[in-house]
């Protein structure tokens, strides 16, 4: 909580990735969250194409701090036969409240029909779906705009907001063209003025704070928002209010 504002981190990982110093250390994550007032982190495991293995790990991780972590379901078109059933299980049985996809771990662009069952599930349930985006051919943000227009009941969150130019501009244009597209802020590319531009051009009500915890420390990524030259009202939307609306959850403290 920062000045009465609940803070929700929309982008975090479960699953050891020790070559980059990720060890599934929930206490380290909570300690960093506490240091800056982050109330909840949304987490997903993108390392297992069957979906089930990673989603079970996510659920177990969330269960260690159910008041601090929120689980997202992950599926992959590498195992298309599992997508619908696993999404149903993850949402209805494990309590996942949104969906994460990571197209660079496959060969299909986000606009390929192989992804449609994922979008259809999100559209049918009215869920948010966050995708990694960036320069990779499979997930450039202009593809999000095309897909979002086809599935208007789902909300699409552009992970990393395209990461760099010209993909950042694509992300902004996708949000401008589709009211169900949001831009998420975590990125190792922290040039000056990025958060200000996202808020100015896409709207403060369309930008959500994310950190990539534990790959990146949530304190520096939160610092991007806090030190940006935007109004306090805009910061409140980015840091929590937009995520609460997207997740459709009533967080009673």
């Amino acid at each position, binding site marked *: 909580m920062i000045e009465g504002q609940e803070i929700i981190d929309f982008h975090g990982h479960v699953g050891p990735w020790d070559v*980059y*110093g990720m060890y599934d*250390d929930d206490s*380290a994550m909570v300690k960093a969250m506490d240091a800056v007032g982050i109330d909840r982190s949304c987490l997903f495991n993108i390392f297992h194409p069957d979906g089930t293995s990673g989603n079970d790990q996510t659920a177990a991780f969330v269960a260690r701090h159910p008041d601090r972590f929120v689980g997202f379901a992950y599926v992959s078109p590498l195992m298309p036969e599992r997508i619908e059933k696993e999404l149903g299980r993850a949402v209805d049985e494990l309590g996942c409240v949104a969906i994460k996809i990571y197209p660079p771990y496959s060969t299909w662009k986000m606009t390929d029909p192989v992804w449609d069952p994922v979008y259809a599930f999100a559209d049918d349930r009215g869920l948010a779906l966050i995708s990694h985006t960036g320069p990779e051919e499979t997930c450039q943000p202009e593809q999000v705009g095309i897909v979002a227009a086809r599935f208007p009941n789902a909300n699409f969150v552009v992970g990393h907001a395209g990461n760099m130019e010209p993909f950042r501009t694509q992300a902004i244009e996708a949000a401008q063209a589709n009211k169900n597209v949001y831009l998420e802020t975590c990125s190792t590319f922290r040039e000056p003025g990025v958060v200000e531009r996202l808020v100015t051009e896409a709207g403060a009500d369309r930008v959500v704070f994310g950190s990539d915890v534990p790959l990146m420390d949530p304190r520096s990524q939160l610092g991007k928002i806090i030190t940006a030259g935007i109004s306090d009202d805009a910061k409140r939307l980015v840091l929590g209010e937009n995520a609460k609306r997207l997740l459709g959850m009533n967080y009673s403290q």
Partner: protein
Amino acid sequence: MSNLSFTSRVPAFDANVGVGHRNNRRYPFDEPLQLVEEMARHGVDQALVYACHGETISPMHGNEALERWTGGENGLVPQYMVGADPESLRQIQGLHASGLVTHVRLHCTEMSRTPFVDWIYAPVLEWLVAEDLPLWVSMADTPPTEIVDTLTGYPDLRAVIVGAHYAHSAMALPMLRVLPNATLELSRYENTQGIEQLVEAVGANRLIYGSFFPRYAMGPILYMLNHLSIDDSDLAAICAGNVEKLIEGSVTDDK
């Protein structure tokens, strides 16, 4: 605890700030005062500034352009840059003879296609050791293996290794151990709890704050440093004290 606004609670001396346009990047400010105002917004009192033009095109021309930024009493301290060309070293030596050089920054060796190897840079490194001047070298622009392989041949040279990324997380600590005279600048080191682990392993005196502006915004890393689980004395050392000692000529303590 955090607030919706931020300014550093300890004096801050940014050890890594570029100024001016680069051939492939427009600089956000036209005047030094605008940079000073941006620094003040985050509570940064002083900064070491180098010419972005010198990173990729001409260290010599960049050094010449630096005076426009550092000429006044504005907290901007010149960081002169050296390249592989012998004329570049001669320029730095001349500036040093005039009392202007407190430390030196290496240009971007990868973009300049002059690898950081002893058979190219020995004259620069030998001169820096002889004059006891620290060298700033960027892991974002020079391969880590070249940095370690070359600097191990100059154990008396004080080095500031700039721009270690989270992707370098497995390298940072071994690098600091094999280079006991090196200090790590933290602009891109944002592994979760990673800085606290480095403080525990090598001590706060081996770490310094830098923003790597304008590649990176000035505030986020300083914000993170102000929210680390470390002593205030360690925070003060990382944010300003260590870099002040480095450019004043004090030898960094080993731990």
